[in-house]
């Protein structure tokens, strides 16, 4: 029997932000993120959340204001989607480069043109190199829990990188389903008060955002990569401790039936629920497992390799594509991870659900059938699902 409440994914994010006592929120509305910022505005208006809410005039300024606030030593939050995330692009690098532990929810949505408000993951996938932790969520419960965990991870002194909590637009944001809201005491135990590592204070003047010459720049980038590697451990630690408080944990990734599976599907976000269901439906007929990638950045490469190395076929199912490469970003990376194995599985890429195209159970069955075929026969490496 479910416990808690039935809430939208958007509300789940807002509830998490409230539980984390965020100090400054700067946000600009965009579909399908709007309910998040509306709910937060309501919390602030009703005194449920004692935060400064900056109603900026663009997402670019939303991220800039978060950078200013975080650099002044307070916990900050913003949320965006699609074009908004793209508009932030420049500032995302700056937030991570300055090592500011900002947390942002991204309601995953397709990018224009043509303009399309529906879900895919091209927006966040296109920001994979910007130095942000990226955590993809399967359910509303996971979204709430991940948002809380994100602060703990980002604020970890060995990490100090901003986090992007990715939840599929509409598919999660506008869906209501049961979830439990942890009690405030549990969150307080889990998430210590924010102690900024660097911050602007007239009593101890500091310069942030200096310019670095070629002599130093590469060192900063290397430091960021080290911090990302540290984040792998930080994510697991946060997850363990969160589980202690709430009974729920997600890890860096989730393995579903992967042990001894001939075919392993790799995917991220809400579609993994549908995939799990179809895997169960085909049990006995097809020996299929699923590797759900939760942490896409940092990507736990060694763990992924361990899980996938003995499969015959690895099929990457994703909602994004690198135009000109003709394949999805996750597919390229998974292929790369497996490349140096002496014996490696075949890797197939499936581009699906772009622009909100519904991902049906028959779609997943077709993917599994084709993957099975690939065990013996030569099949195309990349498949676009939904062109008809």
């Amino acid at each position, binding site marked *: *029997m*479910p416990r808690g*409440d*039935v809430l939208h994914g958007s509300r789940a994010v807002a509830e998490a932000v409230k539980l984390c006592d965020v100090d400054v929120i700067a946000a600009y509305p965009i579909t*399908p993120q709007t309910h998040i910022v509306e709910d937060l505005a309501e919390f602030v208006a009703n005194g449920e959340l004692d935060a400064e809410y900056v109603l900026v005039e663009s997402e670019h300024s939303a991220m800039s204001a978060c950078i200013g606030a975080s650099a002044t030593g307070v916990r900050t939050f913003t949320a965006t989607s699609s074009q908004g995330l793209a508009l932030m692009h420049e500032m995302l690098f700056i937030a991570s480069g300055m090592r500011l532990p900002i947390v942002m929810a991204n309601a995953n949505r397709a990018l224009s043109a043509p303009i399309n*408000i*529906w*879900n895919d993951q091209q927006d966040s996938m296109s920001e994979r190199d910007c130095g942000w932790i990226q955590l993809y969520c399967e*359910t509303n419960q996971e979204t709430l829990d991940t948002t809380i965990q994100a602060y703990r991870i980002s604020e970890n002194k060995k990490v100090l990188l901003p986090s992007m909590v990715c939840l*599929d637009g*509409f*598919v999660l944001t*506008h*869906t*209501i*389903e*049961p979830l439990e809201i942890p009690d405030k005491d549990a969150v307080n135990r889990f998430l210590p008060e924010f102690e900024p590592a660097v911050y602007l204070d007239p009593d101890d003047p500091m310069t942030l955002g200096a310019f670095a010459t070629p002599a130093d720049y590469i060192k900063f980038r290397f430091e960021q990569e080290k911090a990302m590697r540290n984040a792998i451990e930080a994510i697991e630690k946060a997850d363990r401790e969160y589980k202690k408080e709430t009974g729920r944990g997600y890890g860096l990734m989730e393995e579903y039936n992967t042990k001894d599976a001939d075919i392993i599907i790799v995917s991220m976000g*809400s*579609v993994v*629920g*549908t995939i*799990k*269901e179809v895997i169960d439906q085909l049990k006995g007929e097809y020996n299929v497992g699923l590797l759900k990638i939760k942490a896409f950045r940092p990507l736990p490469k060694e763990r992924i390799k361990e899980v996938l190395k003995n499969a015959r076929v690895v099929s990457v199912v994703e909602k994004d594509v690198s135009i000109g490469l003709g394949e999805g970003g996750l597919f390229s990376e998974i292929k790369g991870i497996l490349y140096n194995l002496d014996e490696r599985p075949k890797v197939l890429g499936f581009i699906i659900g772009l622009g*909100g195209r*519904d*991902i*049906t*159970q028959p779609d997943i069955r077709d993917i599994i059938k084709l993957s099975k075929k690939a065990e013996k026969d030569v099949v195309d490496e990349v498949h676009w699902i939904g062109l008809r």
Partner: protein
Amino acid sequence: MREIRFHGRGGQGAVTAAEILATAAFYDGKYSQAFPFFGVERRGAPVTAFARIDDRFIRIRNQIYEPDYIVVQDSTLIEVVNVADGLKENGKAIVNTEKEPDEIGLDTGAEIVTINATKIALDMLGVPIVNTSMLGAFAAVSKEVTLDSIIKGIHKRFIPKLASKNEKAVEVAFKEMEARI
């Protein structure tokens, strides 16, 4: 798992109905899920919303193609949308109309029940917003959810004054439908 598809027009509260149903199922101790056909529809345009009810957590996220129930909030939609598309043979269609089931031209092998929800809504709420009345009818016809939980769901969703009006509409529709079946 039970899958319910709501058909309405923008402004008639089809999405709200799906959400109240999912909430009610939750109050009944079930797992549930509700979501709209994510669209950009404006007032008056055809709208679809979905709800699922199950005894375990609902993992699937796809739209509903083979519903157990369809709830049609406006019988004029039958002419423009194939509302009964994929409706299971042993499923049920609940349609808001003053006509009898065989008069509405709904092409389905499933059972059709009709209710004049517009009249109930006008009597009880003063506006032709039928979503809550249709939920009352759905509860009576389907027995998938209790009347009490629907009412509880309505109170969660609406401000008190509006909730009590809608509560009455639900009760009237529920009784009328119970009397019919």
